[in-house]
């Protein structure tokens, strides 16, 4: 069964994968930006939580 048969029957289906890709990419990018903008001191503080 080809993808197209399923897609044709859903109204506005093309927006599904676009939305999901957008959500995934944006959150992934935001997480990356966030982590690399964090100060070294904060990261040291956080990663030492189990040892304190």
């Amino acid at each position, binding site marked *: 069964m080809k993808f197209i048969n399923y897609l044709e*029957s859903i109204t506005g289906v093309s927006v599904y994968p676009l939305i999901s890709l957008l959500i995934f990419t944006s959150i992934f990018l935001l997480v990356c930006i966030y982590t690399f903008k964090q100060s070294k001191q904060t990261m040291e503080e956080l990663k030492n*939580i189990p040892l304190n």
Partner: protein
Amino acid sequence: MSNNLERFSYDNKIVKQFAFATALWALVGMLAGLLVSLQLVFPSLNFDLPQTTFGRTRPLHTNAVIFAFVGNGIFMGVYYSLQRLCKARMWSDKLSAIHFWGWQGIIVAAAVTLLSGFTTGKEYAELEWPIDIAITLVWVVFGLNMFMTILQRRERHLYVAIWFYIATWVTVAMLHIVNSFEMPVSLFKSYSWYAGVQDALVQWWYGHNAVAFFLTTPYLGLMYYFIPKAANRPVYSYRLSIIHFWALIFLYIWAGPHHLLYTSLPDWAQSLGTVFSVMLIAPSWGGMINGLLTLRGAWDRVREDVVLKFMVVAVTAYGMATFEGPMLSLKNVSAIAHYTDWIVAHVHVGALGWNGFLTFGVLYWLIPRMWRTNLYSKKLANWHFWIGTLGIILYAVPMYWAGWRHNEMLTQFTEDGRLQYQFLDMVNGMQGFYALRSLGGLLYVIGVVFMIVNIRKTIKQGNFLANEEAEAPALAKNYAIHGSEHWHRWIERRPVQMLVLSLVAVLIGGVIEMVPTFLIKSNIPTIASVKPYTPLELEGRDIYVREGCYTCHSQMIRPFRAETERYGEYSKAGEFIYDHPFQWGSKRTGPDLAREGAGNNKKGNAWHYNHMADPTSMSPSSIMPRYPWLHTDTIDIDLIPAKIRAMQKLGVPYSEGYDQIAVADLQKQAQIIYDDLKSQESQLLLGENGLQPNQEIIALIAYLQKLGRDLEVAPVANNQSSTK
């Protein structure tokens, strides 16, 4: 932040209880595994009893190891680390106790019901509906206790391990509820809400994510807590752990369809599964690297410290399994490995290496601390490590080899284009590998016995600290943010928002995959000649499910020449629309049965009768168990009307009021098979009560003869030339 120190104590009792439970169930689950593996070498070990036959002992093994051993291992680690990471005692000791005893009760109920043949027939979700409800309730108790503890914490930031625990909780809840939708017929019998292709998609969305969110994410949480503790140094990169977390939970949920490559699942869903599985390698290896590099500069200690040895091998096994997983998700590799022992090897590298060794490492670290003593014998623990490692190798290598050989033999053609080997030739070539695998399993179990002895001796020489005193300042009510802060720090302080975002992350993949497959029901091409099961066939199918035939036989012919030559026309989505549950299977220890009642595969009723009584009578050197009880036990016709009504509610088009005449129909069809068998009675391997028309074997034969038959008559039905 307030300077007033608050005094409180950590609850070690609940950690102790879960630690004992995980050790006990490790032994039970692995001994069951050893029995299951030996049953393939020595079929007499099935003991000709329903409760001890492979189709029931194998689900017992998988459920015991996953939900009893690993489940209790998760709770042990979570209850220990969560309290310390939150600087708070568990919110309610009572809920902790309800969780512990509830979970153990579920395990015992699971063991009893599975061996009694009460099963939904869906792998790793075999438990019947009352137990499913109990699991939901106990899971809610666990979640409530966990969240309340997090909410009353004294550490503002939620350490990354806790994110993994939260994601685990919310995703397992979602998976369990969605996959367990079923229509009850009686207290211990139900039918899956979904049918055929849809059932398969939901099942492997669940099945794959049970691996992801029960066997992986909680253990990653444990890794992020216990490796730094054991190595006494912080995790290598906290930045990497944040990316690891979000990328992993986002990607994992999409990967389920890689279990269904080349099946009747729509192509697009298969492709999605493959793409996301390949992408998964990035976060998985990010996590592995983060775990291993935590030990940078401390590798000399790994030589000395048995806890670190276990943890290093565990994380390495995780890396191996998560490299292999994406490779197996490629269609060309899956074509070779699917249905073979390769998958069994892959699974056990994960279970024995990753889950097993991490649990053992945590136990060896925890027990001396909670009992305020040293480990009784480092030497014995080292023996455990080496014998366990050898066990894993002896398990995995023969299974990889067996998997490869399975595929090689079954895809060989002679020069004149015929299949070179019978299925049984391949089975007989497996015995040596199966025996070696059992030896590997035995070594691994011996290692676990060493551990239990060591733990027991350690406990005897120590003094248990039930309530560990601690103190920490309370969290200030009004948290002042100094300067600007990033949005992620905001989430890291808010467990409820973290839960919601995790749920959104995991919902996306499931929704995108399932919605089109469900909404566009009409696009699963129906085949006019595919008819609902007759009452007798339905009863036979229930027996097929009850006896766990799917643990060895698939019902899904892939579109390969080697398969269509052997089993017949490849399987179509429209063939399974009345299959509640689907029975495609995942392993071929025996041949595919999708067209057992059609074409060249079709055998007479007497063949099936004798084959089920003693498989070697029809297939010499077969390793299939005997099923003598089917030849004496009688069909339970009281439930037939309820079963028909349940099927009608699920959309199977039986005519109105059919439930009232179903029993008569059943008896009529049984009489036909009975008469046929009766005419050959002298050749039958009769049971104690001789041949009767109401015996279970009659129903099972009716079902086996139905398999593939509808498609065979398709051309006849289309041109209306016959009313046969």
